[in-house]
Structures are given as C-alpha cells and as structure tokens.
C-alpha cells in the first residue's frame, strides 16, 4: 500500500508539473482514472499528503482547493543529485556514488591513457 501511494504521488506530480497551472483534485482524478482504477478519495488523500509535506501549495477556490507544485521538477532533481553527489560534510552511508568529481587536468590525462 505504501509503495502504491508512492507511485501515486509521482503520478500526481507528473501531471501537475506537466500542466503547469493550478489544478483541482477532480481534474487530477479524472485524468488518473483513465489510466488506472483509483478512488477519488485516494487521490484527495495523496494530494493532501503532498501538501503536508510541502510539495504542493494550495488555496481555496470556491468550495474546493486548487493545488500547484511548490517548486519545479528541476529544483527537486537538483536537490536529489546534490544529496547524492554533493560534498556535504554530514554525509552518511545512505548513498554510494559511482564516481567523484575530477579536475579537468586529471581528466585529460586519463582520457589520453584510455585512447
């Protein structure tokens, strides 16, 4: 169930980022419903959770909330990669990178060695 909610979160976010306009739960639900069986209340819960996590901001419009992403997708990807590859001092072993950064000089040398 947790996994499914996680999947739904990204499905919801994909739509909001792609549409790039304030969106109601109903609109997201209707689009999602075309691709999978999902309950309106589930979508509402997911979007409410995303709001609580600070990923979505919302405001009242008439009798319903309309939502929009708090930040762009690119900003989140930036955070993600900074988390994974940045030089933060309080890094734990939560992630294992493949390579670290290299100076241009060293790169040239290495490339020469590979040719």
């Amino acid at each position, binding site marked *: 169930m947790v996994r499914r909610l996680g999947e739904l979160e*990204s499905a919801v976010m994909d739509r909001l980022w792609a549409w790039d306009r304030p969106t109601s739960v109903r609109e997201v639900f209707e689009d999602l419903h075309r691709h999978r069986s999902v309950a309106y209340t589930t979508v509402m819960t997911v979007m409410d959770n995303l709001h609580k996590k600070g990923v979505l901001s919302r405001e009242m419009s008439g009798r319903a909330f309309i939502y929009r992403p708090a930040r762009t997708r690119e900003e989140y990807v930036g955070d993600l*990669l900074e*988390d994974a590859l940045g030089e933060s001092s309080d890094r*734990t072993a*939560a992630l294992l990178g493949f390579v*670290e950064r290299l100076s241009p000089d060293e790169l040239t040398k290495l490339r020469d060695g590979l040719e």
Partner: protein
Amino acid sequence: MTSILLFGYAALLAVPVAWLLRRATWTSRAPALGVIAWHVLSASVLLAILFGAFAAIPNAGGDHDEHNHLAVAEACLVAVVFLVVVGAILGKALVSYVRDDSAQRRRHRHLLHLVGRADTQLDAVLVDHASAAAYCVPGRSRRVVLTTAALTVLDEAQLAAVLAHEQAHLRGRHHLALAAGRVLRLAFPWVPAFRWAQDEVARLVELIADDAAARHCDRRDLARALVALAADSRSVVPATAFAAGGPAVAVRVKRLLGSERPLGRRAAAVCLLAFLLLLAVPMLAVSPALAGAGDVLSHCPFV
C-alpha cells in the same frame, strides 16, 4: 601494569600501525582483506582501551586493611567512570548516526518518488537530468539510480559495467562497512586510526565493486565509464566541490587498466593471521587481569 601496556598497545595501533596500513599497497590488491584489516584494527584499539580500563581495577588480594580497601574503591570508581564515559560516547555516536542516516535515506527516497521513474529493464530508477550520474541507495528499499544523461554518455557495455558496480555495492552491503567506521569516527574524531579507517574503507569498497563488475564486464569498459561519468558530473555541483575525490577516480582507472595482480593466497593467509594476532594480544593480556577484576568487582561498592 597490564593496563599501561594495553593503553600503550592501543596507542601503537591507533597511530603508527594505522599509518603503516594506510601506506600499504597490498590493500589495493586485496581490497576486501583491506576492509577487514581496518575493522580489526579499529576493534583492537577499542578493545585494548576498554580492557586497559578493566585491568586498572586492582586486585585486592588477601590484604583487607582499611587503607587498601579505600584505594581499591577509588580505582574501581575511576575505571567504572571511564568505561561508562566511553560507552556513552559510543552510544551517542551510534544513535546520532542511525538517526541522520535514516533521515537522509527517507528524504532521498521521498525525492526519488517524486522525480524518478522505475525502469524495470535496467532494474534502476531513472531521473531526468542533463549531467550524467550513477549511484545507489542501500538499505531496505535498495535501488540503483541513473540520470538520463548517463544513458546518453555511456554505451551499452559501459552501462552494464556501471550497473554491475552498483549492484556489487548493494549485494555486498557496503554501506554497513562504511557505517561502522563512520560511527567510530563520530565518537572519537581525534583518533587517527578511526579517521583513516573511514577514508580507506570508502576507497576500498569502490575497488571491491570495481573488481566485482570486472568479473562480468570488460575492465576497459568500466574504466571508460568511470571517466565518462567523472567528466560529466562536474556540472552537478559548484566548482568549489571539485577534485575532492578526484585522484581516487584516477587511481581506480589506472588500476583497472594496469597489470596489478590480486594478492596471492599465501600472502592473504599471512595478512589474516596478523590481524587475528592484533585482536588476540589484548585478549590474552587481559584474561588474568579480568579474572582478578571480576573478583574485586564483587567487593566494589560502586558496582
């Protein structure tokens, strides 16, 4: 007396022996053995200090006059306080590590959920980004993460090598090897052996993963993949972060292309024996003292 010897032994391991191990070249030829060596060394330092404190508890012997009794009580108190302090520092480091580690993993998983998409064919999570990167998230929901740029930068053989490298990290549970060193370093950052152990283990697990990948793929493909990703990941973070681990990649590439042979079986056996001796010495030194201390502890008013 035993206690002074044990403290001396801990100091010997923590500085000169650790320095020699850091300089040793055989660890690159047998990285798994190298990781074991660092862990045994760290454990030995810790055990020697703990046992040293135990051994400081004097043996009361048969002499039970008032003055002697007081001296024993004082020594008991000092030793017990020392052990409690060391234990508390270690415990605090462990707790803060576990908390930070799980928080970081949770945050990362959350971000991945939002922006990543699973690729079942590659058995990896893809993230849209213009700079090439590959890494893995260990733990319960372990996964390999690739940026879309990594897919364009790497050819098929190189991609297979990168995936094999990351899978080796996950299969080998390398994060646990790193965690042990990290906790000790958090607890006692001023002990050179613990500082070096963490850096060395981080370096050696990369070599282990490289070797594991090289068993399934061509070494040159892996080397090319390393260079391709190191070249491209420059754009991810600001230039101030440059070259921190740069030489490590250079060494890995040279190692993959070079003719370095893995350590022979006999040399490996000798190394293993040497480590076991490292651990055995404090144990042997302390066993009579421990027996004595146990005897006294039963009389000690503070325990």
